[in-house]
């Protein structure tokens, strides 16, 4: 019940900030369009990377939005008020995860409609699964954002966590260069990063090879969400110095 209160509150905060909502929904649509246009003479590239990218956008957006929102909660004293209240840490984290999953539904819905509609993106597997994985990745981004916000003292630092934590995962997940072509040590690092599994699940959906490896991917992503949320809970202290 209290987690629902947090969901409602975060969503009303977003409703008061239509510009952010517009950016969350429109920027991925713009990028998806650009991706198609820059590879206009090599449409197979867009067909290959379009769907995975669509599924990874929410991860990036929600990571950034969540880490800033949570940092603000820490610096304005509202977190101290909440930690003095009967609210459980899990309620707070679940509330954030739930609220940004709702936002991700809209984001993924809009980008999917554009990609699979006007841009003519084709996938062999179910399109709705691509969108569902996108929402799951949004929750992963939220969970990681909640955790890393504990290590930022200012919004400048929080913004820098994006290139520090998100970009290496995008480079190593297999989207730009197949993992088979990477040096061993890079592949080992790639094995340890959650986005690798998020990408792999999307690639398997696009190719309609929903096999055991796909199930493993989804399992690992879910496990990472739970791990990040419990690490995030550990950074929420009722008592501070």
């Amino acid at each position: 019940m209290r987690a629902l209160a947090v969901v409602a509150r975060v969503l009303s905060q977003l409703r008061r900030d239509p510009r952010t909502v517009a950016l969350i929904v429109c920027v991925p649509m713009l990028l998806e369009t650009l991706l198609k246009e820059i590879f206009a003479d090599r449409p197979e590239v867009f067909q290959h990377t379009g769907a995975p990218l669509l599924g990874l956008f929410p991860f990036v957006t929600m990571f950034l939005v969540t880490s800033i929102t949570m940092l603000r909660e820490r610096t304005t004293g509202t977190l101290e008020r909440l930690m003095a209240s009967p609210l459980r840490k899990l309620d707070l984290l679940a509330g954030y995860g739930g609220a940004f999953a709702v936002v991700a539904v809209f984001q993924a819905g809009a980008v999917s409609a554009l990609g699979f509609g006007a841009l003519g993106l084709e996938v062999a597997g179910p399109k709705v699964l691509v969108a569902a994985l996108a929402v799951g990745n949004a929750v992963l981004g939220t969970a990681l954002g909640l955790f890393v916000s504990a290590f930022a003292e200012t919004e400048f630092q929080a913004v820098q966590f994006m290139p520090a934590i998100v970009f290496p995962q995008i480079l190593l997940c297999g989207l730009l260069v197949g993992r088979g072509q990477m040096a061993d040590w890079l592949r080992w690092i790639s094995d340890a990063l959650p986005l690798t599994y998020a990408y792999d699940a999307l690639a398997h959906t696009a190719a309609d090879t929903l096999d055991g490896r796909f199930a493993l991917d989804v399992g690992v992503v879910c496990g990472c969400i739970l791990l990040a949320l419990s690490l995030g809970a550990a950074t929420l202290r009722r008592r501070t110095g």
Partner: protein
Amino acid sequence: MSRSTPAACLLTTRRALNILRVMNSSTEELHGPAVRVKGLRVVRGGNVVLPDLSCEVEGGRVTGMLGPSGSGKSTFLRTVVGVQRVAGGTVEVLGRPAGSPALRARVGYMTQAPSVYGDLTIRENLRFFARVLGAPGSAVQKAIDEVSLIEFGDRVVNRLSGGQRARVSLAAALLGSPELLVLDEPTVGLDPVLRRDLWTLFHQLASDGRTLLVSSHVMDEADRCDALLLLRDGRLLAQDTPAAIRARTGAEQLDEAFLRLVES
């Protein structure tokens, strides 16, 4: 319906005894200390803020914690609420160790900087905090009325003045009718009329049996309190009623009394 059977008599007696027992325990809570602090030591960032503090806060009264800024008032209040890490000593609140989960719904806390969401309206803020506390929806309007923000209920907090924002924060602390209210400088920057209204509210709450612990760095507010804790450099200069402190120091004004206590 016959009430004269022995069983019914027994039932009535038992009920009467129960009522007596309940009354007894509540008077005990009213007149016993709501907060009991022994040998409290707090270190923040390598600095000893409170070296060794012992005091009591009586239930059902307005106790003022007065002292200059930097004297450790906020740190002390944070300890009572249970959000401050403590290096030593004991802090007991409503009969339990400060910060106990069971206390979280019984203690209302207003931080020094207004801790409400700037991008939400007053009503949205209070509705959220009421749901977190498990307070009924009617508590929201009541709290808005109590801090005299009736005509601003649907205004976004960021568009309010500093004093209005502080009152939203106070309203959030009033939700759920907590038994102990810990208010960190609730009247700072407010105009004299509002200040008077808030002090009237504090005394009303106290006469309902609630306990208030209010900090201020403005000495002229000391006279509005039932009891005082005078703090300087993390040490308690005095702990008494304003009248007793005046009598003891022979000073007319409490400002002067504070000076005499420092110099003695």
